């Protein structure tokens, strides 16, 4: 009797948890699927389900030069910001990762703080600084601003990779007569490379998608893709944006699949 009650009780618990989990997973994935489906509509509205299917909005996208221009700018800025983040971030991670000193802990907090502070406030602050020193907004100011908000991802992932390194490996390398540089090149770097790549990937994606910093540090000549899309959506609901969203969703899925292979991205983010 008690046994049956127990089973019923544990069944009710598992049922409730599983049902909520499945609903939550559907809520997470559904919006992307909806946009993908709507992007193939043959109609002029975002009605769901679409009245018919066609590739007309993707064709329309082909001629949307404003979006091409903004996409090119976003790509260039994201590549530079990622490069700068990797150079500065990996060096800093090497310095602070295994150091127990207070200054290392403080630097770690400083380098992580852009993740928590409202980026919009930083965007405004950076604009004020640049205008104070007489530097007009340009791709350069965008790269600097993006680097500040993207470098934490590189630092965090590199520090995590370094923390998992076996110290004995480096010691044996030293005992066997390898120089520090040689050990770094042949042992440390290959072992932490997936961590660096994962950090660089997340930095790239967050730069490409950045709005709050770009909002203040760009002008018409340096239009950025997420802001162009936002302004288009504020004005009118354009189906071309659905096609562009479709392209971005598919590109993201493809990149994540590659990164999962190369770096084991999913394990990295849950450890």
């Amino acid at each position, binding site marked *: 009797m008690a046994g049956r009650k127990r089973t019923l009780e544990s069944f009710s618990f598992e049922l409730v948890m599983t049902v909520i989990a499945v609903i939550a997973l559907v809520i997470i994935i559904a919006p992307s699927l909806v946009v993908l489906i709507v992007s193939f509509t043959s109609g002029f509205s975002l009605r769901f389900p679409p009245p018919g299917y066609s590739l007309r909005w993707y064709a329309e996208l082909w001629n949307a030069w404003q979006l091409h221009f903004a996409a090119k700018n976003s790509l260039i800025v994201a590549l530079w910001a990622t490069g700068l983040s990797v150079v500065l971030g990996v060096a800093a991670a090497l310095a602070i990762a295994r150091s127990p000193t207070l200054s290392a802990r403080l630097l770690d907090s400083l380098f992580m703080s852009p993740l928590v502070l409202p980026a919009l406030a930083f965007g405004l602050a950076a604009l004020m600084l640049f205008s104070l020193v007489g530097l007009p907004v340009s791709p350069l100011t965008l790269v600097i601003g993006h680097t500040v908000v993207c470098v934490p991802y590189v630092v965090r992932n590199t520090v995590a990779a370094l923390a998992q390194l076996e110290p004995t490996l480096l010691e044996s390398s030293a005992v066997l007569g390898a120089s520090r540089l040689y050990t770094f090149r042949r042992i440390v770097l290959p072992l932490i490379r997936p961590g660096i790549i994962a950090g660089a990937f997340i930095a790239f994606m967050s730069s490409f998608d950045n709005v709050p910093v770009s909002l203040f540090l760009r002008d018409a000549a340096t239009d950025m893709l997420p802001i162009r899309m936002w302004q288009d*959506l504020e004005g009118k609901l354009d189906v071309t944006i659905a096609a562009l969203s479709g392209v971005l969703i598919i590109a993201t899925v493809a990149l994540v699949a590659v990164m999962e292979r190369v770096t084991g991205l999913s394990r990295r983010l849950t450890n």
Partner: protein
Amino acid sequence: MGAAPASRDVTSYGMGLAVPLALFFLVFFVAPLLQLLWLSLHNDTAGLHWGLGQYLHFLTDPFSLSVLGSTLLLGAEVTAVCLVLGFPIAWLYQRVGPKLQTVIILIVLLPLLTSVVVRTFAWIVILGRQGIINATLQSLGMIDTPLKLLYTQFGVVIALAQVQMPLMTLPLITALGRIDPNLDDASCSLGAGSWRTFFRVVLPLSLPGIIAGCTLTYAAAITAFITQSLIGGGQMLFMPMYLYQQASTLQNWPFASAISIIFLLAVLAVVSVFTTLGRLSRGYGGA
């Protein structure tokens, strides 16, 4: 961090390597924020007259205070929804095989890496007058006229919850993975049911993860400019848009600076409350 002091000479690289990034942050992160603080303490746009006028203006203006209040409330609502929906995902993750685990992680991860504008746009399609929800309800004959879902608090909360869900779920998965499964069995064999075990054992032990997830979700939700402005529309004003309007449209930089500082302090206050709770919970959890 497994720091090994005995082998430091081989495994660490000296603080010199952190200097370039530290200088970069000093010039392009700390200095701008200090300048923001400096300008917020001036009563005029040129920055000639010191004073607390901007802060007094904000703190005595019912409109500004209501914007701050609704922003903080929005964050709390989004965080609560994310916790209620995100926890079962993390729970399910621990009970399925490795194949399904990867599927779950990728489902959770994808939105995090998909453009925020795209994700928000998706919710416009879903919540709009001709969107899925209204179309379904109408075809089922449950409503005659489309419901207003877009430009409502409900719409903003649900869209933001979906956008920020990964930030809640990932730390929860980590935290639940660290709980010794034997504790679960022990609790059950001692006669506690599944519900009781969950609320008395699993939930308290996962508090560090809950707090980490809540901190990230809250901070992200209240600063989510794009989702707030597109789903909320012109009727609902939150701190990021208020800041942007003052800075960009009205060119009132000192007041925009004061809004930024107040917003920064509000975020820091929330984060430090969560951090303190986290420290206390670690003592409680005994992990």
